[in-house]
């Protein structure tokens, strides 16, 4: 009896759940677009950060009134921006992003 139960349990573990199928379809169809969109939005965000903290880095944007007004809203993400900026990047990573074969 117990061996039958075990066999049934093993069989049901082989059948993917509804969530697993959903995840698979998402990965197959939309995940790439999702990732690329996030990357583009992050690039714009980085640009915004650059405009805001540029003056502190010695780049004369001459808009310090607005940058100082905006700074409090952006201060929370400053650490991530710094990490993003100093992270070592390699052309091989870009090569890997695309399906080239």
């Amino acid at each position: 009896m117990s061996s039958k139960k075990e066999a049934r349990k093993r069989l049901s573990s082989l059948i993917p759940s509804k969530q697993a199928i959903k995840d698979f379809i998402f990965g197959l169809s939309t995940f790439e677009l999702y990732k690329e969109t996030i990357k583009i939005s992050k690039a714009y965000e980085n640009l915004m950060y650059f405009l805001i903290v540029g003056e502190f880095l010695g780049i004369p944007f001459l808009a310090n009134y607005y940058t100082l007004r905006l700074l409090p809203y952006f201060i929370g993400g400053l650490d991530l921006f710094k990490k993003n900026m100093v992270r070592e990047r390699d052309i091989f990573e870009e090569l890997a992003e695309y399906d080239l074969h």
Partner: protein
Amino acid sequence: MIYSKYVDKKIWATDPNRPTPAKLYTDGVEYFPVSRYVLYGYQFKSVAALGPIVGPIVATAFYGWLPALIWLIVGNFFIGWVQDYSAMMMSVRNEGRSMGPIAYNLMGDRVRKILLVYIMIYLIIITAVFAWVIVDTLNRIVGTFIPVIFILFMGAIFGHLVFRLKVDILIATIIAIIVVFAGIILVATFPQIQVPPVNFLDPKLGTTTTWPGSLTVLFWLFLLAIIYYIAASTPMPRFLLPTIFVGFLPTIIALILVIIAALFTPLTGLSMAQAAVKNLWITDPSVFQSGPIWPILFVTIACGAISGWHSLISSGLSSKQLEYETDARPVGGGAMITEGIVGLSSVAAVAILAGSIGAATNYAQGAGKLTSALIGISSTGMTLFYSVFIVVMGLITSMLFVRVWRNVAAELFEKSIFGNKHVAIIVMLIVMIFLAFTGSWTNLWIYFGGTNQLLAGLALLLVAVYLASQKRPTAYVFIPGIFMAITTVAALVWETYVYANFLFANKPLGPQTNVAKVFGQTAVQISNGFSAVLGAVLAVLGVIMTTYLILGYFRYRREKAKSA
């Protein structure tokens, strides 16, 4: 299963509690953990393109379906998944870094630079090969062009809808699916709009073959060059990114359908019509297609059995989103096994056809026949669907080749004019047109397979170097790595010999007869000379790279012995 469990537990000793780069460096952009099912789908989508479809067709045409079947199964089970999985694990243990930086750390800058040059040559060859596959399909399966136009326009509109008008992605996707399938159904229903006819600019050439050197081929190649130029020079969200998304919608359906149809052949009653085994040992270079089964079969089928490009995808992409180390086996290894099934379905699709095979159009016919028997839609309609699938798959990947080429050129020739994006794109498109217009695509395909497989051998050897540096067992990657490196260099030398043989004999190589007729023998000689030099350069670079890696491997082994 047993072998993969052994490698996973005993060699890499994966631990679900060890933090992965996705958790350590979470930034929500490149590093973030996702479910293994999402990643498995993504990895499969990234590795399964036109490669596992075209390679098995060519191999079946060369040697029959049985050797192709055996290599797909053996290669995939003992080398293919090993490479994908190991590259992923190596990257996970190296902060999610890609093969290039890891090679730089272990071996120095020279190895990384040679690898980049190698990739540039790879990109030129594969773009020329895919250009020929697309042109041949557009020319010979009439009606393919209009649905492809629908897809390209829908790509641009989808980008506008999602990125500019902020339309919900689900609604935009539904619109895209409707438009894409409307294009196919429209052309399948109304034969009057199945244009242009075969060889429409060269009516004297008949309607059975696409001839290199013909005006029709030149027309299609120029059209492709324009599309590639737009895709490579405009911002990603405007055209390329949405076109990839829209283009992959029908291709996913096509892939799943053909796999199911191949599995159900015992019920649909279709049987093999091709020879199981033929021409295993051709050593006469004047028989320009094929060659001795070793090494040619092992480079003809690259993707599906083992593919070097996967090592880049596994190491630089998926490894950054892996939630647990233990997920590497189902994601890296599992996706590769699934790609093997795509390769097997491709063999099934062409093996059921009688007569001569060897072109991508045969795949469209075979897949059309397979799926038509399963779902009851007319074989002609399904053939059109699969020819659209081939062209779109080829177009999407080729647009990316050109874009990536432009970026690699900028990296390598930073301070010269070749680093300029427009110059780099135009140079590549000229070489692509020249090779596709004057060459024999099956021979170029072997070059592509050679470069791809050598990349695989190098990736395996790099993993061996890494494991040696970590004092772990290395035989399971070192032996396949050496086998792949020797085999592929031998294949490149053979193909160089074939081109050189035709060059010195001052003869056109098979389909080049039409080029010789229209443009003179000199054009053929330039093409064959260029191809021979290309093959020789690839072989020499391959030998240099392999030597560096083997020396590095033994250096780390000696250090290990000393420290013990």
